[in-house]
């Protein structure tokens, strides 16, 4: 395995851990994540009050809970971001085994909290969703497999990773949790794309998807009606989407005022899936654009930094993590603005959810660890090439 991480470990004799971390970390992305978490707490002050009131708890019960779990998540993120890519890979693989076991045992020990899908373990004081933790670990193990495939005489890692992806997706689809399944599939696809998927294959897959969609639209009336319903400009104001749209519209550019919003009282998922609607109503377009900019900043900067990365594993793993993060945010906000059909997907770091924020902390910690600037052997390359 030594070859795989050749030249990636920065060695500066005698440099302490923390200064080195501070020198090499992507400080903009780190700041972005921390600000996102802060915004999440701010919105939680408004959005989680109705839920607390409904459950007969003090109004800011869920805010303090989120602050606690978020604090844990932030610490986890910082600790993981100090690890070396090797360490991240090892932890990721071990974590994957654990998370996958937890996922597989869900039908036995899990609970559905009356929501119809068995996705959680109830720990009494908190609940725990294995698929949230499985996601970053899956990205790591797939990146490892794909990177190994790039070795000469290496194993057929891409095929293995494909089978792994299909297995995980099937498990998730059985819960059912199509949102997480599609995220897993998307992360695998992006990594495969960056790992060098043949253009012909991509073209063929794209063609099949388009043709299949058209065929399904023509053949299945049910499918067609759903698509038409989504594409229709009119929206029933009593649906979740209707409330969210109404909230965004009444918020306007500067919002109706802090705490003045009404959508949080009407929407049961205002503190999780539709928190962006609360933000739009109370703080207006300003805050929404700021949140979008933060997600774009973290995703974009990570991808740009990974362009310089020489190590295939680091590059692939980083790509998968950054894209999963960005896409999750995109899907959540796309639903709120009616660009996508309704899908339960949290907004990372902003939505309420203890296990969600810790899992996001793990994923972003790994991403930050992988995007740290390292000597990329540029001088070495130049010398070798000149020598050739």
């Amino acid at each position, binding site marked *: 395995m030594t070859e795989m991480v050749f030249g990636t470990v920065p060695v500066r004799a005698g440099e302490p851990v923390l200064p080195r971390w501070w020198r090499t970390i992507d400080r903009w992305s780190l700041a972005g994540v921390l600000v996102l978490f802060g915004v999440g707490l701010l919105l939680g002050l408004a959005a989680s009050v109705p839920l607390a009131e409904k459950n007969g708890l003090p109004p800011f019960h869920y805010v303090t809970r989120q602050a606690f779990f978020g604090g844990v998540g932030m610490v986890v993120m910082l600790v993981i971001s100090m690890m070396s890519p090797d360490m991240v890979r090892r932890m990721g693989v071990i974590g994957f085994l654990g998370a996958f076991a937890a996922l597989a045992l869900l039908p036995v020990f899990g609970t559905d909290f009356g929501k119809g899908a068995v996705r959680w373990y109830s720990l009494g004081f908190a609940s725990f969703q294995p698929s949230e933790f499985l996601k970053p670990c899956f990205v790591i193990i797939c990146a490892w497999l794909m990177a190994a495939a790039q070795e000469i005489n290496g194993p057929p890692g891409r095929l293995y990773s494909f089978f792994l992806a299909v297995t995980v997706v099937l498990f998730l689809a059985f819960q059912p949790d199509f949102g997480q399944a599609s995220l897993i599939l998307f992360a695998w696809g992006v990594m495969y794309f960056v790992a060098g998927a043949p253009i012909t294959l991509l073209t063929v897959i794209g063609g099949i998807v388009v043709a299949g969609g058209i065929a399904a639209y023509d053949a299945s009336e049910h499918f067609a009606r759903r698509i038409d319903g989504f594409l229709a400009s009119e929206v029933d104001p009593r649906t979740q989407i209707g409330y969210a749209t109404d909230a965004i519209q009444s918020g306007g550019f500067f919002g109706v005022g802090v705490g003045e919003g009404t959508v949080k009282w009407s929407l049961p998922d205002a503190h999780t899936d539709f928190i962006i609607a609360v933000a739009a109503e109370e703080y207006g377009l300003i805050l*929404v654009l700021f949140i979008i900019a933060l997600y774009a900043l973290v995703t974009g900067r990570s991808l740009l930094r990974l362009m310089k990365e020489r190590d295939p594993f680091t590059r692939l793993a980083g790509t998968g993590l950054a894209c999963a993060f960005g896409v999750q945010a995109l899907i959540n906000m796309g639903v709120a603005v009616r660009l996508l059909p309704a899908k339960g997907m949290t907004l990372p770091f902003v939505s309420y959810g203890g296990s969600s924020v810790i899992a996001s902390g793990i994923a972003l910690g790994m991403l930050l660890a992988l995007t740290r600037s390292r000597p990329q052997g540029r001088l070495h390359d130049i010398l070798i090439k000149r020598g050739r």
Partner: protein
Amino acid sequence: MTRIPLRPLARILSARAKGENPDVIERENIRQRHEEMRDRSRAMAEGRLLLLCGAFLAVFGVVAAQMGFLAASEPAEPVSAQSGSAIVAQRADIVDREGRILATNLVTHSLYAQPPQMVDPVGSAEKLAAIFPDLDAERLKKDFTGKRKFLWVKKKISPEQMQLVHEIGDPGLLFGPREMRLYPNGAIASHVLGGASFGREGVRSAEVVGTAGVEKTFDTWLRDPANGGAPLQLSLDLTVQSTVEDVLYGGMKLMNAKAASAILMDVHTGEVVAMASLPDFDPNTRPAPLLKGNPGDSPLFNRAVQGVYELGSTFKVFAVAQALELGLVNPDTLVDTQSPMVWGKYRIRDFHNYGKQLTVSDVIVKSSNIGTAHIALMLGGERQQQFLKSLGLFDPTAVELAEAPTGRPLLPKRWSEISTMTISYGHGLSASPLHLAAAYATIANGGTRITPTLLKTDRRQEGERVISEGTSREILDMMRAVVSRGTASFGEVQGYSVGGKTGTADKAKPTGGYYKDKVIATFASVFPTTAPKYVLIVSLDEPVETSGDEPRRTAGWTAVPVGAEIIRRAAPLLGLRPELEQLSQAEVIRVRN
């Protein structure tokens, strides 16, 4: 196991020939190829990552643009921040014929509670119960500490009460503005006005809907913003109404009656100038309807419109008028009054025995049942029914009160000859005092049909002709004689030439038959008879006049003095000038000194 060829074969073979270790060469080769491959894949990945990054930024941009587009557009659906459609609160005033306010609106407040916001639910409940004695402290405590999120405490509170509630200082006690219906004159004209209560209620406003009387009849009109705030003008005259109610109340007490009603109507326009029914109520605090007992005993019951009674001898005028109109008799025709009159198994008696014969005029003046029954036999049932129907005595009055349709006259099931005879003197047919007023107005105004109305109008009614003007005049003279020398002698009011007819009807028992000592005494009067202008009906329920040796119940002793007092006081208010007969005495006598 697939065999991997040694590469580069040429160098390895030559190295082997030189005895060097070919593995080093192969490893070096592998390392070089690996480097190249990594460079290639990195170059490709670099491009693809840039593509990905661009795609992400583009999609983030699309989401942001859509957000901006939505934020810039106005909410098409009603904004959820507003609570439903606004309730139109402004209700038009009701005024009398001179424009004086009978009903108007007052901005007040309702008190409601949001227990989750309350600081001290138990203490607040106790303080509220102290401010509003009708509230139950225990009940409030239960409500405030229970699961309720919202409850109305009081629908209407005064500014003083609001201040006291403010002083409790509990943030969970809140006020909503209310437009409240106010009847500034209290109980005056209560039965005409009816009442109003809250319909749909929101926190910010509540709908006021009419529940009875003209408030209910004209509810839509009063609430219609298209009227531009124009008030509803009634035909009532507030001062006359007040006078009538005052005098009627005094008369009711004096005559020991349990209830009374009075109607003052313009004989030409059909306008009801005053209408009273006692006992009455205050429409500001409208009492609840009776749950048991006779609803006719409730103060809410409008005796003048809803109550139908056998009105006794006041009906004799109709029989005589028809007989005159048909030319069967003239005022001086002698009619058999031999008492008792026996008809099959029935015996008809008069209050006094009037001898063998009376003129038609005296039948009215002395109020002979037997004489009227003989006249009715001349008419026959068929013609009698037609005539009474043309006077409007067969159908509910069309007056603009929500309760009017319930005042449906009671007619005999079979109109036999004995019915014809009894109805001619007012037994066997029940009608409301308002029916009587309209019928008398019809006879007094020269003979055209009058429909009663509560709305002010300046036009004389051009109803169908029921009797000729000549008959009308003859009847008026008879009615004048009833007052000047007949049963209603206490009805004389100097200068106003009052005419009328008394009626004393035994009250029917609910079990059948008639009470011996319970009557309804009615005085139907017209004034002035020289040029009729108003009809006044006064009806007392179970009056007893006890100043004499024995209790007197006849209308002449009970209803007539009350009616006369009403005329004495109301006529000047109505703008009528007394016609003093002995003008010569008032002449200035010039004396020589």
